[in-house]
């Protein structure tokens, strides 16, 4: 007989979400909903009427973990709408920023994932904050990698959290030769660390995959199921590293393939919690008898690509561009680790190619005639697409299709077949960033999805 269990709020990720699941007698999920409970600040709406220069600064503040992705996607969407081509050196600076952000974001995510994992060869969960070895050295290495990423973010972006240097039309400032050398040195320092770290993290995730039993940190050990965290959805990525925009000759994201469904068509209706575990760490699950209504509570819409949910993120990038094919929650975790080296070498290439005397701001920055422009940025968690229409320097319309929004319905599917006690492990594999994901619905006056119409 099917029961309803709910983990709320979920932990160790950005933002507020919950997992509402129907499970069978053995506790295996038969239908799962993972949904955002994060209040909708309404960035898309509050940007309307603001200047095109301010809007990307506002969208940066959607998320402090991937602020660079949002700044770049927002800025480039504005540039795509007004038809502004930025100088090459400005682009190179943005590439450096992009890589720096991905390194520090992935490293932060390691801290969030490790507590569910075990020190290989033992049954001890990894508490990343313990002063004990061998964990402390790993944690220090994570912080060192973050420091490299964030420091490069400071140099090139002005600030690593909400970068101030990018602007519509390019960048405010190029960097000095000294700064160029400093970035070079930092990256070279990070490369061997990142390689060791990648190997370590991959061994940890593989170790988890190989275990017959597992628990979330502090939780009860339960038997794992075959195909843990598998799903049959497709992948979406626009590039391995950077992205694409409507100004590109060779566009790599296809707006006409995007549609959206309302949450009440997608999520479960009214339910009553009928299974409860007061020992689920820490503080227990939602009490029996609680009425829940995912379709009403969900704070995001459900974007589809080719009519179905897709996965976006590290594995999608590697699957589409590198033939990577490891499935399941750990397959995604491992893919993320494999991106460290790409980011560091990407940064190195870009910083070496940079001309520190080159101009970084376009001569001509048009004010916009209301044309729709979009930019897709390969954020740490996947394709972050901002779409906008700028008229006379003001934002007329703005939409953000951020990675975690794409992943919500996909994760919901990936929960099926897993013991409910381990579902947070699946969700955490996606490195959810939920404050970002408070989009997103494009509807016309009659409340019909108009995505298609926009792009005709």
């Amino acid at each position, binding site marked *: 007989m099917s029961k309803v269990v709910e983990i709320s709020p979920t*932990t160790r990720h950005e933002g507020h979400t919950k997992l509402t699941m129907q499970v069978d007698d053995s506790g295996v999920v038969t239908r799962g909903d993972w949904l955002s409970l994060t209040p909708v600040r309404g960035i898309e709406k509050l940007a309307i009427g603001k200047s095109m220069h301010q809007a990307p600064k506002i969208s940066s503040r959607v998320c402090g973990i991937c602020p660079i992705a949002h700044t770049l996607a927002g800025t480039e969407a504005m540039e795509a709408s007004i038809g502004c081509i930025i100088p090459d050196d400005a682009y190179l600076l943005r590439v450096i920023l992009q890589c720096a952000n991905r390194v520090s974001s992935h490293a932060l995510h390691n801290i969030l994932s490790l507590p569910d994992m075990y020190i290989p060869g033992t049954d001890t969960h990894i*508490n990343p904050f313990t002063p004990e070895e061998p964990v402390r050295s790993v944690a220090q290495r994570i912080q060192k990698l973050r420091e490299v990423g964030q420091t490069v973010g400071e140099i090139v972006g002005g600030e690593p959290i909400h970068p101030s240097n990018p602007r519509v039309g390019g960048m405010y400032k190029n960097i000095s030769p000294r700064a160029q050398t400093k970035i070079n040195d930092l990256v070279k320092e990070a490369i061997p660390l990142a390689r060791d770290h990648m190997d370590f993290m991959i061994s940890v995730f593989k170790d988890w995959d190989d275990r017959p039993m597992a628990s979330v940190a502090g939780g009860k050990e339960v038997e794992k199921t075959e195909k843990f965290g598998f799903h049959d959805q497709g992948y979406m990525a626009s590039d391995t590293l950077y992205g694409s925009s409507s100004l590109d000759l060779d566009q790599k994201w296809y707006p006409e393939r995007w549609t959206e469904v309302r949450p009440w068509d997608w999520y479960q209706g009214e339910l009553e919690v009928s299974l409860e575990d007061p020992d689920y760490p820490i503080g227990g699950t939602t009490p029996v008898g609680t009425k829940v209504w995912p379709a009403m509570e969900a704070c995001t819409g459900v974007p589809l690509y080719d009519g179905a949910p897709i996965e976006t993120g590290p594995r999608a990038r590697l699957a589409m561009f590198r033939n990577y094919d490891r499935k399941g929650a750990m397959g995604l975790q491992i893919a993320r680790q494999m991106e460290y080296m790409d980011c560091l070498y990407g940064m190195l290439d870009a910083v070496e190619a940079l001309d520190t005397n080159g101009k970084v701001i376009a001569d001509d920055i048009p004010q916009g005639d209301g044309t729709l422009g979009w930019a897709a940025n390969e954020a740490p968690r996947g394709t972050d697409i901002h779409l906008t229409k700028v008229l006379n320097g003001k934002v007329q319309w703005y939409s953000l299709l951020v990675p975690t929004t794409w992943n919500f319905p996909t994760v919901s599917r990936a929960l099926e077949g897993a013991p409910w006690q381990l579902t947070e492990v699946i969700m955490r594999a996606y490195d959810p960033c939920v404050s970002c994901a408070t989009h997103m619905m494009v509807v016309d006056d009659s409340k019909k999805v108009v995505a298609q119409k926009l792009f005709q």
Partner: protein
Amino acid sequence: MGLLSNLKKIFTGKKPEEPEAAPEPVTVPEPVTVPKARPEAKPAVKPGDVKVEKKPEIHEKEEKPVAEKITIGHVHMSGCTGCLVSLADNYEGLFTLLDNYADLNYCLTLADVRDIPKMDVALVEGSVCINDHHSVEDIKKARRNATIVVALGSCAAYGNITRFARGGQWNQPQHENYVPIGDLINVDIYLPACPPSPESIRNVAVMAYLLLRGTDEQKELAAAYLKPLMDLAQRGTEACGCDLIYDVINQGLCMGCGTCVATCPVRAISMECGKPNIDRDLCIKCGACYAQCPRSFFNFDVMNQFEAIGEVIDAAMGKGDE
């Protein structure tokens, strides 16, 4: 050299024959509400480091008795988590803080505690959506459960970009109204900026530790240090680049140092005629420029001891020459 031995020097000063040039000594404020007895302030969850598992052996091996530390919680309202990332950007210093001074006993992003426990210090990030009852309950609970509430960052302190919110976005178009936490609860300490720097969060954490666990002298230092941030909390929940106009330039206080220009996280400020010009189409109302301006507050009692206080913080963090 430890905190204690250093502090003696701080308050006696290194050159007693040359007391500071402060016009009048700033009176040391009443500390927020220094908890009377410790036991009742115990967190609901047994403090550990960031407690993500219940493996007892790890705690047993700790050198410092856990009871010495204070408990800090990170309460996430409608913010972007950038303030928390900034705390984490103390890098190794984050571990020093957590090893020696504070247990992070609540932080949804970093640990598994799902309910807001009792805590000494609540670092609240984000403004409150008054249309979302969970948010409203959480902020009230944070106030009830914390001895000291810190508005961490500009969204909590002033609303920041959420000041522009007006709803209308699916799937919760009724989420229209966002208010700084100070509009709903009493806030003890403001730490504005978008985000506040890692160093500033570290300083407040160390000072909170001294305030709650220190000797009388240390308490005095911490209270003096925190006073201007407590005054900021009393000043109000509205901020804008315009504050430089109203409260600095118009008041005849601006001397053109340019600090505000360097501070602004969206490069909205330039200097014209020796005074800041605010591009109000760029300003996101974070309040950092005003807080950082040396003519918003400048407490000579603390500032004149900048070198010694810097050394104390370095010593606390295990850095510096001593």
